């Protein structure tokens, strides 16, 4: 008997060991845009609004959402021809998952548009994981009828952030310098548009040359440089009121402004007596602090998102290179050492990278490096790719691309160097800046 037990134990031991499930390691997948279905949003009621009927708004909202998701390069909205049936309210709340699976949709965005008694609308946005057969997000957006686009962008942001785990960037705007005219008589105007190119309008008349517009963090204020009265100075533009105001009473030329992350300070360059240094201007106290000194041109300052450091470009070492210093100007050290010159650094809103322009060998490229200068990668390569600007989530870089004929336009590229695409503008365009997400 003892022997039998002993034998059984011998057999049992490995049997237990084997009861662990088979282990499989998968170390690579495919990088493909996720197929996603965005059928027209269903009318919650049949009413008409100043922006059209709820049915019409529902159709257009779905198009805006699909376009947003597609532009990220991470999603592939399915051709609506693949699902000809109209999605009604019942389908919004109880999608027919097997049917969506048959057209290989991995995610589904549906919703309703309902007109409210005050003339506004409620856009209800639902996202589903088709293969899990589960709702993964829902949110309502109440706005004016004219605000349906913003509600659609917010829905796209909800879907994007839920499926990627990163914050969205679709409900945001782009300010840039619109250019027209010959090279010698170039007219430059500030212009603003939604991130997807809608709602384009000019902010300045073009009477004065303008450069380097930059959004204030968290608010809808822009700082820029203008040659008003042939005097190049830093200005501030308030989008709500359209008010413009020169910054400080400096006799010297000020340029390359940028806000601090808390919006309390501006940093910019000031050229005094043939020497250009970086200064900080406190918007409340109007006091000015000099942050760099010494010969050479120090310019293009940009704060780290936590406000403790500033990256800037300087030719103090003989050619333009990138330097990082503490926010009080101490501890300046060079971080770029690659071939050619490096300029116009911008710190990513998520803090992990600094975007910059690399010049050398007759080519321009936009690249990124870590704040300590490591991990440098060039993302683009063009005749004149310059002026990088980050999307609010630090995932996409907007830049200006010029060609040999002197034309220029706005382009965007993913931080991985993929998904390079042109942003349509009515005229030539340069110097883009991306707003924070709208509140």
């Amino acid at each position, binding site marked *: 008997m003892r022997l039998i037990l002993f034998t059984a134990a011998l057999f049992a031991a490995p049997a237990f060991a084997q009861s662990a499930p088979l282990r499989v390691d*998968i170390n690579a997948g495919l990088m493909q845009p996720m197929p996603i279905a965005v059928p027209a949003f269903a009318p919650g009621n049949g009413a008409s609004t100043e922006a059209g009927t709820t049915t019409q708004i529902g159709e257009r909202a779905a198009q805006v959402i699909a376009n947003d998701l597609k532009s990220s390069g991470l999603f592939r909205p399915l051709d609506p021809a693949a699902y000809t049936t109209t999605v009604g309210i019942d389908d919004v709340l109880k999608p027919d998952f097997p049917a969506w699976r048959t057209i290989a949709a991995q995610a589904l965005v549906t919703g309703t548009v309902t007109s409210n008694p005050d003339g506004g609308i409620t856009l209800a946005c639902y996202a589903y994981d088709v293969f899990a057969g589960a709702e993964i997000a829902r949110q309502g957006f109440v706005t004016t009828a004219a605000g349906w686009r913003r509600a659609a962008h917010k829905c796209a942001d909800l879907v994007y952030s839920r499926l990627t785990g990163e914050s969205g960037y679709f409900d945001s705007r782009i300010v840039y310098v619109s250019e027209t005219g010959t090279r010698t008589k170039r007219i430059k105007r500030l212009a603003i548009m939604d991130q997807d190119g809608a709602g384009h309008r000019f902010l300045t008349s073009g009477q004065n040359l303008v450069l380097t517009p930059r959004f204030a963090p968290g608010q809808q204020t822009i700082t820029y440089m203008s040659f008003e009265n042939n005097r190049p100075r830093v200005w501030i533009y308030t989008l709500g009121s359209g008010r413009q105001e020169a910054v400080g009473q400096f006799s010297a030329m000020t340029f390359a402004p940028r806000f601090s992350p808390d919006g309390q300070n501006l940093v910019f360059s000031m050229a005094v007596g043939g020497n250009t240094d970086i200064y900080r201007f406190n918007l409340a106290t109007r006091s000015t602090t000099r942050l760099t000194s010494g010969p050479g041109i120090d310019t293009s300052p940009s704060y780290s998102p936590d406000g403790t450091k500033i990256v800037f470009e300087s030719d103090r070492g003989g050619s333009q290179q990138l330097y990082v210093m503490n926010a009080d100007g101490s501890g300046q050290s060079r971080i770029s050492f690659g071939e050619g010159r490096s300029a116009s650094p911008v710190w990513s809103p998520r803090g992990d990278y600094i975007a910059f322009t690399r010049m050398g060998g007759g080519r321009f490229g936009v690249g990124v490096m870590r704040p300590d200068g490591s991990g440098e990668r060039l993302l683009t390569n063009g005749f004149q790719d310059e002026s990088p600007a980050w999307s609010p989530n630090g995932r996409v870089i907007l830049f200006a691309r010029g060609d040999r004929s002197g034309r220029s336009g706005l382009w965007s590229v993913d931080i991985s160097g993929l998904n390079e695409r042109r942003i349509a503008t009515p005229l030539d365009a340069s110097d883009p800046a991306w707003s924070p997400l709208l509140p």
Partner: protein
Amino acid sequence: MTRAERLSIAGAATAHLVLLAALSLAWQNSQKMLAAPTDAVPVEIVDISDAPRTPEPPKPSMEAAPQETAAAAPEAETAPEPEPVKADAVPPPEPTKPTPPKPKAATPTKAPPSPLDTSTLSSLIDKALPKATKKPLDTSKLAKELNASAPARATVDPRAAATLAQAIRAQVAPCWNPPTGGRDVRRMTVIVTVNYSRDGRVIGMPQAGTPTGMTAANADYARAFAETARRAVLRCQPLRLPAELYDLWGSVEINFDPEEMT
């Protein structure tokens, strides 16, 4: 008030308006404004359970549905759907049931394990890969051997398990689309536990564990990351694997690690 008086008052009012307009225009010019500046249209974010705020009599489903699902936790997949499950839908979750029906299990006391020819086994799996629907070779003898020697699964050569793992990897990896470009993507891995039925279909909802490298700061990313792994398992099914070896692959732990991706 005479008609003339009324007229003159109206005239004066109009003149004032014109003057005011001219002055504001001049002021506007001094501000160099082109278009009337508009602030972004406000958008209020609401819980959808409150929606729709319709003035009309509530449409049946829109009103009812949020309540139906309002109780659903964020992890909606855990909320059992009362609707009958359609034929090709994922069956209701039975995650705790391992339940691969045992092959006519011989009792452990019977027959000492006969040595398996694992080379046969490997070639069998490999051949099974490309043409899944076809039965690979004649596996009955092998299966018998396995069955007869049970705790035979205990003694299956690790190489056989490795080959089987490779077969699963080859079939699931093409469906995995990890979120790229994320800050933490290359630091994160996740294990998904899957139960397969004999025909290679996923039983219930695969369970994704807590991703490694997950922190409070990247919890949203970790959730999305884990879901891409689960989606890969759900999309790439049924698996085409030798039924004879079902005991080995009825329950599988798949470790998703994007280390080889850029």
